[in-house]
């Protein structure tokens, strides 16, 4: 991954763009394309998780929160837009529930710019707040994982309790997306392109971050937080940035998920779906750039095809995947590639083993030196 020149990267992006924008729409039916669009949303979340967990070592069990904020704000905006077009005071589901007046926290999202701004800003803001509260006090590891999980649980419970937010059943039956009718297949195709474009953009941003000096620091914090602190950096700030970026991505993914799937409910954002986000990332290779994307799409695809026919078998398989991949191939499928290449190399020329501590140390040194210097191979193994 690290030896890629800019030309190869450009070629990679171009082929991904061709695949997503030309090949996929040509060969897939409208239904399959819609499914793929949904998988792309998961992939966007996965890129953020790869950054925070794979690179930063922050196991976030609660990306559902940020995904949910994006998704629900989009849902509220679409409900209000539909109501406005039909000249109704409140969305249809509220009328059925007997709520005559629009709750005050719904009002701002009637405006499209406000809704969009909130989708882009709120998840990151919440992540920054939690990050400050947690990382600045050097709470980490399992404690952070638990807190991120508790936050998702709290949001899911809050949403199920609110009649005005659709409660258990969530929000659905959207007619239009910023004025474009959702029952029109052409518009649904546009939604797919939107998701594909967002994914490419997110991957590009993550790539720049990972290859920058900041990216090196993030890995250094993951491997040797104390040493980074002694070198004069504040590990908390480094972690907060990665967590905020991951939340930002998840928020965007959520906002796209709602119009694409047509329903958002607490079941989509709760504790279990938040942890299940991680499985694709782990399978693909948590600390690589493309591993999480491909892993997320692959797992989502497997789930759809599998659970249609054998719903209970899929749950077992999911459990087994968690155990086998996380427990025994922590580097994911992407980690098998260097192993294979290493085997080939060893076959070609005499072995020159590089010990793990040396590698960890060199990545910290590279991060601390002022010169950008030659990039060091990042260790794939995480703690």
């Amino acid at each position, binding site marked *: 991954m690290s030896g890629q020149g800019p030309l190869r990267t450009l070629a990679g992006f171009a082929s991904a763009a061709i695949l997503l924008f030309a090949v996929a729409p040509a060969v897939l039916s409208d239904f399959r394309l819609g499914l793929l669009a949904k998988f792309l949303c998961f992939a966007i979340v996965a890129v953020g998780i790869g950054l925070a967990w794979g690179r930063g*070592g922050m*196991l976030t*069990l609660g990306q559902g929160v940020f995904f949910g904020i994006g998704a629900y704000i989009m849902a509220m905006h679409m409900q209000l837009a539909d109501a406005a077009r039909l000249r109704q005071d409140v969305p249809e589901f509220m009328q059925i529930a007997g709520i005559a007046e629009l709750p005050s926290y719904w009002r701002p999202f009637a405006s499209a710019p406000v809704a969009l701004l909130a989708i882009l800003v709120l998840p990151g803001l919440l992540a920054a707040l*939690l990050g400050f*509260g*947690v990382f600045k*006090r*050097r*709470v980490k*590891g*399992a*404690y952070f*994982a*638990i*807190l991120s*999980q*508790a*936050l998702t*649980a*709290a*949001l899911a*419970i*809050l*949403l*199920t*309790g*609110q009649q005005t937010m659709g409660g258990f059943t969530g929000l659905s039956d959207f007619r239009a997306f910023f004025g474009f009718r959702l029952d029109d297949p052409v518009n649904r195709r546009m939604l797919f392109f939107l998701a594909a474009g967002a994914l490419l953009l997110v991957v590009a941003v993550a790539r720049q971050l990972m290859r920058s000096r900041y990216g090196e620091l993030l890995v250094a914090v993951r491997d040797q937080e104390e040493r980074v602190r002694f070198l004069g950096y504040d590990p908390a700030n480094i972690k907060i940035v990665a967590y905020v970026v991951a939340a930002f991505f998840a928020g965007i993914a959520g906002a796209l998920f709602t119009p694409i799937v047509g329903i958002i409910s607490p079941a989509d954002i709760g*504790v*279990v779906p938040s*942890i299940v986000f*991680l499985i694709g990332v*782990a399978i693909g290779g948590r600390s690589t750039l493309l591993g999480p994307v491909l892993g997320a799409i692959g797992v989502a695809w497997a789930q759809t095809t599998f659970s249609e026919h054998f719903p*209970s078998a899929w*749950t*077992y398989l*999911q*459990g*087994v*995947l*968690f*155990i086998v991949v*996380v*427990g025994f191939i*922590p580097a994911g499928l992407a980690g098998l590639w260097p192993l294979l290449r290493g085997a080939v190399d060893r076959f070609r020329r005499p072995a020159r083993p590089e010990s793990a501590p040396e590698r960890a140390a060199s990545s910290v040194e590279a991060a601390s030196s002022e010169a950008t210097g030659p990039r060091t191979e990042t260790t794939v193994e*995480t*703690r």
Partner: protein
Amino acid sequence: MEVAVGQLFTGLSLGSILLLAALGLSLTFGQMGVINMAHGEFIMAGCYTTFVVQQVVHATGVALIVSLFAGFLVGGLLGAALEMGLIRWMYDRPLDTLLVTFGVGLILQQLARNIFGAPAKNVVVPEWLSGGLTLAGTVVPKTRLFILVLAVVAVAVLAVALKTTPLGRRIRAVVQNRDLAETSGISSRTTDIGTFFIGSGLAAVAGVALTLIGSTSPTIGQSYLVDAFLVVVIGGLGQIRGTVLAAFALGLLNSFIEYSTTASVAKVIVFVLIVVFLQVRPQGLFTVRTRSLA
């Protein structure tokens, strides 16, 4: 006054449930730094054990007592199997253990769904536990009093066991300093298995108690797991007194906030309070000073 007493009792009752759910979790977390996501499914195992025992033993009172012991055994064996089969391989990767045990939890849940079916199962409450007692002007259900007593007994037995039994002494030694304990001839392997047995057994005992106040479904463990985790975070590492204090504090806080708002808003407020609390004491109420957890 009556309202305050009522809320006080609700809080204590919730606290005792949290305590039972979190006691074993905090024990294993304190000793091995491992967060066991399958702990909720061990609670569930206790619930279904009660259900099965009641199919065999028809005298409900006897069935409850038998279930407490059978549950402890079932949960303990499941926990020991998990430790020996999976967790021992990844002590240096506590975060990964969290996800691996989540996978185990998924499998156990689905197993329960396939064996017992998705619909909730009910256990008949023994006659001597039905109805309520009038305390200070409020009626409190006997089942909840029983759970409170059970929690107190569990803590007392655990405390005495840790203080006096050979295994307890070994557990304390390993918690305080694993390397030194090994140097002194303590097998940390057997101690870890023993700790997991006790911790998981306690989870199942919590499950047995839960059947008295609600029905059992395959996802019952999930609903208590997050709260149990929070108790462990607040209580600090593997300290019984921390867990006890944290469980009752959370229970009381929840019941009093819930009284003035709603259950769902209370959850959010409690979460915010926990994050604020961590600003003051990042490592929880009590910690073992001699061993730092990276």
